[in-house]
């Protein structure tokens, strides 16, 4: 008690230090994050918007306003239209698969079983691994000549002459349009599933046990509890998982750049990779910026909508 009493003794005016000024302290502590966001997010974003309305090149970034010319040019190319479609297709299909699998995984990992901690560690590995390393691993798995998956398929007589996937000895995953697109989706799911699963797991554990116990007492089975109680209660969390997933996938070019470089032909090209090929490697920086920013307004509106609906759905 003496300490507490000592603590409560009012300090004399004029002896207040910086540490006592909570408002100022809060500002100071927030300052690094603020500087970080402005420097690494804000300025590049403004720069990209500026570039998209100018005819800058990789060799000359002096601003010379050219209106909507970059947008007109990119819209005229079939590669851009394909990249736009692929970006939406890969993101939506992958996210649907991810949310379904993540919900199942979250349910599974909420149960008590032997090796649960190890399972959780293994689950997070794809997210913890640098995306470039993971994708290079997949590139090897899907190699046209040395794919271990092909080797296994041949060993169990599913690939080769007279087999279901035969007669060739290789599947050529990245050379066939459908298989290449499926490969990209698989890699995206592999990469982003852990994040969504962990988010949903946190959501599941936050559901009031009393509600679930009451449902059990009332005779609600597994599916009814899942679909009529857990899923509705999880919706705000699902929205958060979707939001992270959408934004991460929309802005990712590593998977495409390392795995397919947009091929075969342009069938797996996405906006981020096409922006890079056009703007950095091709030197048309203005068109690259316009490509990268094309969906920014749509994305921004989507994010605002999701966040607002999440706030409305929050269980208090």
């Amino acid at each position, binding site marked *: 008690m003496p300490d507490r009493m000592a603590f409560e003794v009012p300090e004399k005016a004029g002896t207040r230090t910086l540490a006592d000024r909570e408002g100022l302290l809060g500002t100071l502590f927030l300052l690094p994050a603020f500087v970080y966001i402005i420097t690494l997010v804000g300025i590049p974003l403004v720069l990209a918007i500026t570039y998209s309305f100018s005819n800058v090149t*990789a060799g000359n970034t002096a601003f010379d306003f050219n209106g909507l010319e970059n947008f007109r040019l990119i819209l005229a190319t079939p590669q851009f239209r394909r990249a736009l479609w692929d970006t939406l297709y890969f993101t939506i299909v992958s996210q649907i698969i991810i949310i379904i699998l993540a919900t199942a995984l979250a349910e599974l990992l909420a149960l008590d079983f032997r090796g649960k901690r190890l399972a959780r560690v293994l689950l997070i590995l794809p997210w913890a691994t640098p995306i470039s390393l993971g994708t290079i691993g997949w590139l090897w798995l899907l190699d046209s000549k040395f794919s271990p998956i092909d080797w296994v398929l041949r060993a169990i007589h599913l690939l080769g002459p007279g087999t279901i996937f035969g007669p060739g000895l290789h599947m050529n995953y*990245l050379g066939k349009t459908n298989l290449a697109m499926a490969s990209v989706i698989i890699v995206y799911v592999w990469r982003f599933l852990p994040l969504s699963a962990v988010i949903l797991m946190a959501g599941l554990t936050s559901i009031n046990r009393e509600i679930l116990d009451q449902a059990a007492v009332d005779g609600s089975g597994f599916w009814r509890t899942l679909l009529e109680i857990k899923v509705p209660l999880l919706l705000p969390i699902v929205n958060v998982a979707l939001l992270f997933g959408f934004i991460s996938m929309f802005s990712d070019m590593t998977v495409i750049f390392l795995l397919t470089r947009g091929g*075969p032909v342009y069938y797996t090209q996405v906006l981020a990779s096409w922006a890079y090929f056009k703007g950095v490697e091709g030197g048309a920086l203005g068109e690259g910026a316009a490509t990268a920013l094309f969906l920014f307004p749509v994305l921004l509106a989507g994010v605002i909508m999701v966040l607002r609906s999440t706030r409305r759905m929050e269980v208090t």
Partner: protein
Amino acid sequence: MKHKRTLFLVVSLIIIGVFLAACAPQATPAPQKVEVTRVVKQTVKETVVVKQPVKETVVVEKKVEVQKFAPGTKLHIVQWSHFVPNYDKWVDPFAKAWGDANGVDVTVDHVSITDLAPTLTAAIDAGDGPTMIEMPVTPSSFVEGLQNLNDVNEQAQKLFGEQAPTCKANSYLPALKEYYGFCHGWVPDPADYDIKLWKDAGYPNGPSTYADLLDGGKKIKDATGVPLGLGMSPEIDSEMAARAIIWSFGGSIQDANENVTINSPEVIEAVKYMAKLYQNAMTEEVFGWTAASNNQGLIAGELSYILNSISAYRSLQKVDPAAADNIGIGPALKGPRGDQHASAHVWFIYVIPKYVNANDTAAAKAFMLHLVANYNQAVYNSELYNFPAFKSTVPQLYEEGSWLDIDPFGSRPQDKLKVLRTAEDWVTYLGYPGPANPAIAEIYSTHIISAMMGKVARGEMSAEDAVSEAEVQIKAIFKKWRAKGLVGGTK
């Protein structure tokens, strides 16, 4: 309150520490003795131990006058990790030794070949970065951010004679009458083929025309299941292969005056040929290849013919010398009217961004000349992968009985690479027969040509439609760069 104060104290100390560290003065470089004028006698001599007897090296003495370098002059070179690792082991100490002898602080950084374009883009955008960057293909789309290198190119030509046309075309922009790069070397892109398979197919010396390639390739695939491999994927080898076929069929993307000529009967014929070649002698793997895939396929004995530099063959020599003996090296194939062209595989083009100061620029140019003067070492240490921009600097490569006749790196037969002595006769460059201008560079980087080939080979479009679609895009790209005054022509 006590905890809050402690926390505040700790955070404040960290911030002050970081601030002080950032503001700390850099170590002052020790004063360096600088000669007022210096004439360096560069004696080019063979310093490497060869495995097989070669003709006695011709010693060429070149005098390169080196100006005074101010104290603190730096040369920071960024170049790609060479496909022949031995080259990097040689070039790093070579550059540092030159720096030590001339009072220049030299640093050589190696990055992946695909990281060079983003490195140069970022450096120009930031206005800060390396002194010079070595680009593997034409950096003409960066020309506005690069220094004019007319002086060093002219000096090199004065000292070492004529520059290989494939090098000049990838470093000189006629629209500005300006050298934006200094190309010190190039790499032939010959055929690498399986001797036994082609012998069994009736071509003991490999194919010499595109008709042979189709006929022999089909026979081999039908008889053994082994396809040939000319890629149609968004990667460097596919782009070069597509252009080699177009040129050898008499077509081109542009003419010598930089007018778009892609939509021609010759190009359509070339595209149809590629589709036929795919349907008869290749598999779907060629649409999903990386730059390393055809090398790997050849090494694995699963491809009968590829277009690539000799690095694929050199790799095989190291892992399986007996299998390497079965690999033949062939020249560019002839088209239906006898045209014989193939692009160089890559080039070695040094560029100096505009932000580099005068002292560092002078050092960079002096080093370029020093490297060229000693290019026989570069060729040797790259295991004959690099070819010189200035032939006179490497007489050991071209004379009778020299390295291409008796491969110092153990080829069996020892003259396996002699076909490369004629490489300068059939090698071309991006943009052939016009210059490698920014429009050509963008077309290359956005894979329009390999995709055009791929669409027809996959049966998605007719050759005529695919070429027309490509023409629309190519004309738009030309128009854009022409408006900036960086591309000539009118059409």
